[in-house]
């Protein structure tokens, strides 16, 4: 199936998505990598407010290259998600519903996704120049000292994503491979 979705992503909007579905995402998303996640979770543990609204938020695991003059952003493809696994369950419990990255997630993250109706999307790893075309606006909202790893608010238009793990725990990394092998071997 193919979906066109706009943020914020509510649990209701995410519920029909199944692993393997294509999603063109528009609206506001936030960027964070390991260093930013560490700070966000530390804030949350102290009961402090996060620098952006986490309820129904989508976080994109990306550290873009610097924008050249006249550009909104430089190349901006996903980074490997497992480095965020230690932090994601906390953010999901706080209301994060969408994660965009690449690569496997831990069972703890998948359990948290199932409990709270969150979805893990894959963007094409290594396609940073292509994905940058979908980003229409970018501004730093926190942790400027982290450089490429700062938290940015992005406005995206028709960002091409694949549902890798759906809210029921269906996992494309398992079934995509199995389906291919069954079909061809």
């Amino acid at each position: 199936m193919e979906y066109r979705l706009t943020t914020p992503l509510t649990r209701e909007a995410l519920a029909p998505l199944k692993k393997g579905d294509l999603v063109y995402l528009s609206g506001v998303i936030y960027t964070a990598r390991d260093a930013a996640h560490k700070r966000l979770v530390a804030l949350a543990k102290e009961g402090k407010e996060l620098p952006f609204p986490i309820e129904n938020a989508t976080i994109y695991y990306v550290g873009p290259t610097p924008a050249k003059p006249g550009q909104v952003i430089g190349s901006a493809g996903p980074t490997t998600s497992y480095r965020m696994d230690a932090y994601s369950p906390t953010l999901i419990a706080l209301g994060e519903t969408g994660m965009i990255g690449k690569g496997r997630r831990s069972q703890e993250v998948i359990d948290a996704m199932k409990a709270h109706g969150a979805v893990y999307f894959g963007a094409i790893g290594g396609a940073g120049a292509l994905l940058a075309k979908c980003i229409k606006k970018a501004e730093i909202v926190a942790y400027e000292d982290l450089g490429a790893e700062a938290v940015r608010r992005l406005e995206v238009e028709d960002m091409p994503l694949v549902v890798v793990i759906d809210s029921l725990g269906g996992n494309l990394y398992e079934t995509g491979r199995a389906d291919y092998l069954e079909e061809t071997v």
Partner: protein
Amino acid sequence: MREISVETVKRTVARLCVEANCHLPEDVRARLRDFREQETWPVARNVLDQILENERIADSQEAPICQDTGMACVFVEVGQEVHFAGGSLADAINEGVRWGYGEGYLRKSVVGDPLERKNTGDNTPAMIYYDLAPGDVCRITVAPKGFGSENMSQIKMLRPSDGVEGVKDFVLQVVEDAGPNPCPPIVVGVGIGGTFDKAALLAKQALLRPLDQPNDQPFYAALEQELLEKINQKGIGPQGFGGRTTALAVNICTMPTHIAGLPCAVNINCHVTRHKSAEL
């Protein structure tokens, strides 16, 4: 004795950093196109199309192919007859990286201390590998290495009795462990022999060899082919979404080793297998 100014080295390194990050080598591009044509799984074809489209955009707009513009691995082959004039060679290389990553709008991805983790802000220091060679030429290769794939690399001190089967099992296990994480289709660099550290270096050097150039020893060329076929029977596919195209190539480098050992290192690279060379 031939004199080369360190200023020339600096300018060359800066240029190579930018060119390597924006223009995929033709051999890698050709492999991607070939595998796209041979791929039968629709999801995989779609991913490979996007990867090729991304590479075209990067090439035409001089944009980084991937946002992880890597640690700058710089291989310097210095002719014995060369004298570097005007300062330190290492400083010139690092200055070139600083310049290239700054003026080229590349991402600064290096932290100064591995545990303190504060970004150095200019992508230095470079990882520099020096080699001496006969003659009066200096050959410089810049290979920006992304860490999504670097993190999926492994080394194992096999026993001599493990033999070629042990090597095959280990390479296949590393690819299996890596799964979708290193942005497949991957390039697999394998270093066999030497010492613990030399095996790792061999694996990295294997990634510099053009993908259409097999090992010059028929035994290892056949092993490369066999491993590539086995990897592409795994079904991991581009991005791990399923399909044939899990790896574009397996490159093996070997060297003599100790009677008691069989070191084997596997350095994984993503589909953005970048390197650019110049001769001074």
